[in-house]
């Protein structure tokens, strides 16, 4: 994807730019400044505080702010400001201790469980689940009952209780990168597991751990203050929780005493959470900006009242795509085009194939026709017309969901690439076939069921009733793809768009599904757009071919013409790069020729 950078340097580069982005984010900067100030105030409490934390002026209890006692005194005549500063020490130190314990337990176990799996993984996961199902305060209460009021002990125990969070996080991240190619490469090149973990895996885990820590530290502060508030802490030490409790007991006399510890607790935790959010935002900067802009663009097309009529003389085409351009807004405000100036058309009963390697924009083109582009995508030029009316008029920024929803299922349908992930696992296959028919065709459930069984038989499923009653996980991938084909033709569409319909299937099943597609197309006389990277599929099915490269059309024409005399060098490369160069090519060409004759 991006240019390879030397492994040793990438960490440094990323860190500095991430830090820069955090500081440039106003909330991130505020959080950092606040945390530094709070930390410094606590660290230098001995110097800053006008009085000792337990210095008590019995003659002057519950004093109002001002004068000698800047924030007043509490019920014991102790200086509130001094106690606030000293309280920060204990509160922050206990948060630090708690987070450290949680990391020390959760991180290594998560690394080992994620990297090696096996018995350690299952044992550790069981322990993590057990700890997660314990109510934290109850555990802390019993520890307090057993071992006395030690803040440090309580925080160590609470750290243990929070360690499953780190364990799960680390384990998930490690599992997701363990089988990445670069980790394989490192393994093959002879790096020890320790080096791989230290160098490649830690760099991935680092950011989520930092974010998690900002939240854990906040939770620790809340719990520590809560225990002290309950009077279960060490009364000799000033903490924000003890101050809050003193204020609460004197709420009728001096409610102001509640304000200071509340502010201290809330500011500290909020700063920690905001810092965590700022780090996360800095790491996923690009996506943030893209998502924000979308609503403004979305409203335009639905408001445009009268649609312009299509260019005269083009109404007879089933579908016509003219100079289409699709792009994604980038973080810096520019738009990255993934489809650019693409034009083609398809007539009724015709099979058009869009060919190109991954990233050539062929699927994006297909999804623009269906109106199923991701939310962040925008039409940046051109138009699409279906059966003589615009679905994307010139000047539209997005595909109008209003116009498309009248067509989808009814007149244009879709066969996806990955059969298993395109069926809802929670519903039976039958109900997923029946529902669109009752919605689109307005027929009764019983009628739809009869039709669905017929369709399942038609697409070559041996026992339609059994498949109808089955859940998606009970059928094979090839079966599921047949089901999806049945679904695509169930409402008698005029145009079927198949996105790599055979890529995810076994080779033998591929041939069967292609056969099925060809038969269906001939029987029903529908127009079909097949998106593929495989010239074998093209030769097998298509009447005409559009070759795409880097978002543009490089060649278009009759299938035999292009297979025999590819003009564009890219087409030639694609054809030459086919693994099964000779045998299937000749066979398939003859096959296609036979089909035309």
């Amino acid at each position, binding site marked *: 994807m991006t240019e390879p950078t030397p492994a040793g340097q990438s960490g440094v580069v990323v860190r500095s730019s991430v830090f820069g982005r955090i500081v440039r984010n106003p909330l991130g900067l505020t959080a950092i400044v606040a945390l530094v100030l709070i930390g410094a105030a606590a660290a230098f409490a001995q110097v800053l505080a006008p009085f000792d934390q337990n210095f008590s002026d019995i003659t002057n209890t519950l004093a109002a702010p001002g004068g000698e006692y800047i924030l007043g005194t509490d019920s014991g005549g102790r200086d509130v400001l001094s106690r606030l500063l000293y309280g920060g020490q204990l509160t922050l130190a206990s948060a630090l201790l708690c987070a450290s314990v949680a990391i020390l337990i959760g991180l290594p176990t998560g690394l080992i469980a994620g990297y090696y799996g096996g018995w350690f993984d299952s044992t550790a996961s069981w322990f993590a689940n*057990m700890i*997660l*199902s*314990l*109510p*934290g*305060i*109850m555990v802390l*209460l*019993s*520890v307090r*009952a*057993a*071992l006395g009021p030690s803040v440090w002990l309580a925080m160590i125990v609470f750290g243990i209780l929070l360690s499953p969070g780190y364990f799960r996080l680390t384990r998930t991240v490690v599992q997701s990168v363990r089988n990445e190619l670069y980790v394989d490469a490192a393994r093959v090149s002879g790096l020890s597991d320790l080096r791989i973990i230290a160098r490649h895996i830690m760099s991935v885990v680092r950011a989520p751990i930092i974010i998690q820590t900002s939240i854990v530290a*906040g*939770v620790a502060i*809340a*719990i520590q*203050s*809560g225990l002290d*508030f*309950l*009077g279960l802490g060490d009364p000799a030490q000033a903490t924000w929780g003890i101050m809050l409790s003193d204020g*609460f007991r004197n*709420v009728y006399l001096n*409610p102001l005493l509640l304000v200071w510890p*509340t502010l201290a*607790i*809330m*500011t500290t*935790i*909020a700063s920690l*959470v905001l810092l965590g959010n700022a780090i996360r935002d800095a790491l996923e900067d690009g996506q943030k900006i893209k998502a*924000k802009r*979308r*609503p403004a663009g979305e409203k335009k097309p639905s408001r445009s009242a009268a649609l312009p009529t299509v260019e005269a003389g083009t109404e007879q085409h089933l579908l016509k795509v003219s100079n289409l351009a699709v792009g994604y807004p980038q973080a810096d405000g520019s738009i990255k085009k993934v489809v650019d100036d693409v034009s083609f058309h398809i007539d009724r009963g015709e099979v058009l194939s869009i060919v190109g390697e991954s990233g050539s924009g062929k699927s994006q083109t297909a999804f623009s026709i269906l109106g*199923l582009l991701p939310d962040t995508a925008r039409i940046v030029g051109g138009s699409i017309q279906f059966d003589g009316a615009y679905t994307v008029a010139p000047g539209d920024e997005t595909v109008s*969901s209003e116009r498309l*929803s009248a067509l*989808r*299922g009814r007149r244009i*349908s*879709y066969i*996806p690439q*990955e059969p298993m*992930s*395109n*069926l*809802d*696992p*929670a519903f039976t296959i039958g109900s997923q076939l029946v*529902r*669109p028919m009752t*919605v*689109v065709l307005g027929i009764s459930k019983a009628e739809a069921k009869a039709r669905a069984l017929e369709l399942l038989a038609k697409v070559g499923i041996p026992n339609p009733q059994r498949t109808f009653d089955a*859940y998606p*996980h*009970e059928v094979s991938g090839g079966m599921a793809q047949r089901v999806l084909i049945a*679904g695509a033709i169930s*409402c008698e569409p005029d145009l079927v768009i198949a996105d790599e319909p055979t890529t995810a299937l076994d080779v033998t099943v591929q041939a069967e599904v292609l056969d099925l597609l060809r038969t269906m197309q001939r029987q029903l006389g529908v127009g079909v757009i097949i998106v593929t990277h495989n010239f074998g599929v093209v030769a097998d099915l298509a009447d005409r071919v559009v070759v795409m490269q880097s978002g543009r059309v490089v060649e278009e024409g009759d299938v035999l013409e292009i297979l025999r005399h590819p003009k564009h060098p890219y087409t030639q490369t694609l054809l030459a790069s086919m693994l099964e160069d000779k045998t299937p090519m000749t066979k398939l060409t003859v096959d296609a020729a036979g089909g035309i004759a």
Partner: protein
Amino acid sequence: MVSFTLRRLGAGVVLLIAISILTYSILFFSSANIARNLLGDQATEEQIVLKEQQLGLDQPFLSRFADWFMSALSGDFGRSWFTSEPVAVAIANRLPITLTLVAVAILLTAIISTLIGMLAAVKRGWMDRAVQIGAVIGYAAPGFVIAVLFVTIFAVQLRLVPPVSTISPGATAAAWFTSLLLPVIALAINAVASSAQQLRSAIIKQLERDYVRTLRSRGIAEREILFRHVLRSAAPAGLTILSLQFIGMLGGAVIVEQIFALPGIGSLAVTATASGDIPVVMGVVLFTVIIVIVVNLLVDLVNGWLNPKVRVS
């Protein structure tokens, strides 16, 4: 499904036994000075030895645990060392209050955070930002801080509700309502703030699944996709989020009960902890863990039932 249920039930029992052993050993190995604490400084050595014999503290650990465990199985959790009230009775008197508090709060949380999470996932834009800001505030203000502020503002300053609860298991519905209103809201605010954001992510994750795109291509309306397919697929994640919130709330209830002077399990636990009343602490921990196990079991079963792979096999 039957074997799945039995497996989960078995796991729950194992967990319960493991936790009893753990808690019992921590608590009872550290109860060295308990007789002196009970009798006070004036007590003589003989009185202390006698008291330790009465409490069974002179027995070896294993036989003590076996005794306790066997009586616990028959519903006898011992008596409080300080009030001599049977632990089972003390808990039975207080459990309804805590359970009502937590159950109403989690119900409120479930409804509100699902609505907010769904709106944020579908509408994005400002709704999304509001949820994120709400989550920060929710994290930043721990439940007990909110509770303290509530009492200060609504009970002490505005005098809208009594600052101290007036409920007991036999009180009128009106007393229950006014007494539980603020505690429930204090518990729920926090939970809503964090779970709305998590539910939003769970729903967005489902909205991005391939099958949602295919359903759209089949002409199914957006509303139906959301309510019939997406919410259903997000339900297991949502239930897990809520069950963790529930466990958190049992802890939060301890402090909130103390603030509102609600005579629930939490305030019992705090008093027992502060005085070192080990049998009561043990009983409270055990009952809390049982509640947690039952809730987790229910969530597992519902999730199993929602998942056809588990249900059908």
